[in-house]
């Protein structure tokens, strides 16, 4: 179910009304309402997939209780570690089976892959699997308060409540299929009774308006144009078209994913939950390292906490640090999809991260010129690497570069459309730059009339000027 569909609007209204029913302000009721809504949301397009999600929820909830019991009540770390390892392994096995089986089988010559081709790719499996792993690892690391640990490992009636709570954490519909990936330690503590009067309305409305504006007005319009970067249209594009379209895709993927994340954050706020920000104006980054602190923050921090640091991080010498960086980015690329192009994309980012570390050393000196040059390099490297994301295969990437010598004439309406919508992503980042560098000047416009006008314009555009409806790009991951 898409956030920009009529059926989602109905589901949201019904869920919201039931959630805040005045006579039923009970914790279990509210969790149950959101669990049922999440199940509806997820099962809407393919009912069968709900079984896998349910299995993931129960598996991780049971494992959490077992880990708490063995580690903190019976003081048996060995058993707890066994539970942790097996749960992580099963989570990863499910992910590999449903997402990578076909890809891996394709690597073995002569192996028939017909049966594997029929395995459906469950939407959002990469997201909820990572949340499941986060839950058991955070539990094992004792990242929860004692009260929470007691609640999560309670017996009798409390057992069912705990399973419901943890299933709710894994399947909460705003972030279920495309993030942000919420760490268990950031979310589980928030589960509790929520009141209508406590809703952060301005925050929720602003997130929703901005999110829908970025997605439906900017990304969907740009998507209608960037589709021509593929066969058969790509061969009829001029070098100007190709350049404008690549930058447009860079803006589109940002607007699409950041828009989705903002909608998720706004929706969660309507139900009293705070999700972490996922994008912090990534195109302001002055290095690839900084880019990854600003882009898909929830994935970067997940990879840092649950992969990079356990691998040794930067504590085992510089050689090992470079290897760790490359491994993390390589797997980060693979997380996006079972294809060589994602591996290539991740690996290239890893190489740039390692190079920056190697060449940058420990110098913290930042001059204006260095910042400008750094921004120029980062933005263009990131944009160029999006080609691997967009194109179905390496051949089409080659075709893109060959197009620069084709001598075809430019398409004015295509360039017009890209500029008309792409420019708002630039404006969005310029405003953010002023926010970061001239906070006193910008604080005058916050929370008042000017902000109301800006959001009013965006809302009007969402209502009257949305683009051709497209699925969110990150749904496929």
């Amino acid at each position, binding site marked *: 179910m898409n956030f920009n569909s009529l059926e989602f609007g109905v589901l949201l209204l019904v869920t919201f009304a039931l959630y805040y029913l005045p006579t039923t302000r009970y914790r279990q009721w509210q969790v149950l309402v959101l669990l049922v809504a999440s199940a509806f949301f997820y099962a809407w397009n393919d009912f069968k997939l709900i079984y896998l999600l349910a299995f993931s929820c129960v598996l991780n909830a049971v494992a959490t209780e077992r880990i708490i019991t063995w580690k903190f009540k019976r003081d048996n770390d060995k058993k707890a570690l066994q539970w942790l390892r097996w749960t992580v392994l099963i989570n990863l096995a499910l992910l590999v089976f449903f997402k990578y089986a076909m890809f891996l089988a394709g690597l073995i010559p002569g192996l028939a892959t017909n049966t594997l081709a029929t395995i459906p790719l469950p939407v959002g499996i990469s997201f909820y699997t990572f949340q499941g792993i986060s839950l058991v690892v955070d539990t094992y690391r004792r990242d929860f308060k004692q009260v929470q640990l007691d609640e999560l490992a309670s017996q009798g009636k409390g057992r069912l409540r705990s399973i419901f709570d943890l299933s709710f954490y894994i399947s909460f519909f705003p972030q279920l299929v495309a993030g942000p990936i919420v760490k268990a330690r950031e979310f589980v503590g928030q589960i509790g009774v929520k009141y209508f009067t406590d809703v952060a309305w301005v925050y929720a409305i602003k997130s929703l308006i901005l999110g829908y504006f970025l997605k439906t007005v900017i990304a969907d*319009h740009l998507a209608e144009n960037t589709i021509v970067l593929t066969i058969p249209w790509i061969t009829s594009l001029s070098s100007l078209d190709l350049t404008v379209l690549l930058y447009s895709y860079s803006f589109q993927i940002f607007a699409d994913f950041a828009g989705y994340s903002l909608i998720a954050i706004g929706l969660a706020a309507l139900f009293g939950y705070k999700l972490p920000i996922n994008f912090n104006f990534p195109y302001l980054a002055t290095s690839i390292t900084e880019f990854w602190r600003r882009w898909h923050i929830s994935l970067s921090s997940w990879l840092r906490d649950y992969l990079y640091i356990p691998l040794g991080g930067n504590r085992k010498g510089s050689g090992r640090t470079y290897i760790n960086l490359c491994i993390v980015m390589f797997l980060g690329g693979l997380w996006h999809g079972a294809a060589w192009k994602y591996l290539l994309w991740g690996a290239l980012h890893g190489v740039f991260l390692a190079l920056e570390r190697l060449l940058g050393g420990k110098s913290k000196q930042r001059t204006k010129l260095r910042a400008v040059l750094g921004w120029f390099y980062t933005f263009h490297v990131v944009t160029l690497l999006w080609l691997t994301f967009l194109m179905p295969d390496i051949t089409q990437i080659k075709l893109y570069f060959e197009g620069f010598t084709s001598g075809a004439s430019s*398409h004015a309406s295509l360039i017009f459309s890209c500029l008309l919508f792409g420019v708002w992503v630039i404006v969005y980042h310029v405003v953010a730059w002023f926010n970061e560098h001239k906070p006193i000047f910008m604080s005058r416009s916050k929370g*008042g009339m000017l902000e*109301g*006008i800006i959001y009013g314009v965006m809302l*009007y555009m969402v209502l009257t000027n949305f683009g051709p409806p497209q699925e969110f790009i990150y749904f496929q991951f």
Partner: protein
Amino acid sequence: MITRFSVSLVFTILLLAMIHLGIIRWGKIDGVKEHSNYFSSLSRIETAMNVVTADIAICGSSLSGRLPASENIINLGVDGGSAGQSLNILKNGKFSKPNIICIEANSLYSDTLEQEDKIVDVVNSITFNWRRGVTLFQSHNRPTGLFYKVIRSKFMPNNQRPSGNNEVKNIEIGIPSEGFSVVENVDWVKKSSFNKCVQQLRHIKNNGVETLVIVWIPNGVGSGDRKESLKNYAKAVAGETRAYFIDLEGLETNGSIQYSDGVHLSPSSAEYTQECLLNSIKAITLK
């Protein structure tokens, strides 16, 4: 804070709605073609749905989409689409039933006749039908679409009325002989696509449409050989389905047809082409 924010938000929306309505009413911005192919096509569909009694339906891609609609002509040209998609829309949408269907020959080969089409789904949706009833939400009134149309009308070259008369002297009209088939000799044509296409057109004929016309629309793309192959394909379909074939490319020989972007007819040339098409149809129906 919430009061100032929400008051200015609501006030801005109301103000924008009034400005928008004013531009729609007094701005004299015509046409359905805007920067988005999707919404240009939806605009044509909205216009077509408002036609009470349609005599002729034009189905095709953006090439025929540029031909003007009128009180008794519905134009269902799909920008970036094909005649097959357009016919699907005609089949599935709520339109007045035309006696004559003109199918664009140029995109007839495209194998989309049985494809699920996003636009077909949208046309039947509740939201589309609700939105087309409200001026501010109609596809041809989108703010950026209006902006595009203004820019286009200011800067678009070659918009002079063609000098030739609109009689049908240079136009090839007729039902190609049955068995006119070069299909098997052309590698880009799939036999299955051809059969599907023929089946679809026969189905339309059997459902009470009096006259089926396959028409070649002048356009600025493609080599001579490619054009010839496409035409022969369309003629073969016409022969199999007993449809009339009209070749409007003859209009180009007058040297007066103009293209706005090197591909599509300019508004004046589109008007002129439409007149020639209607005269050709008149000649057929008088036979």
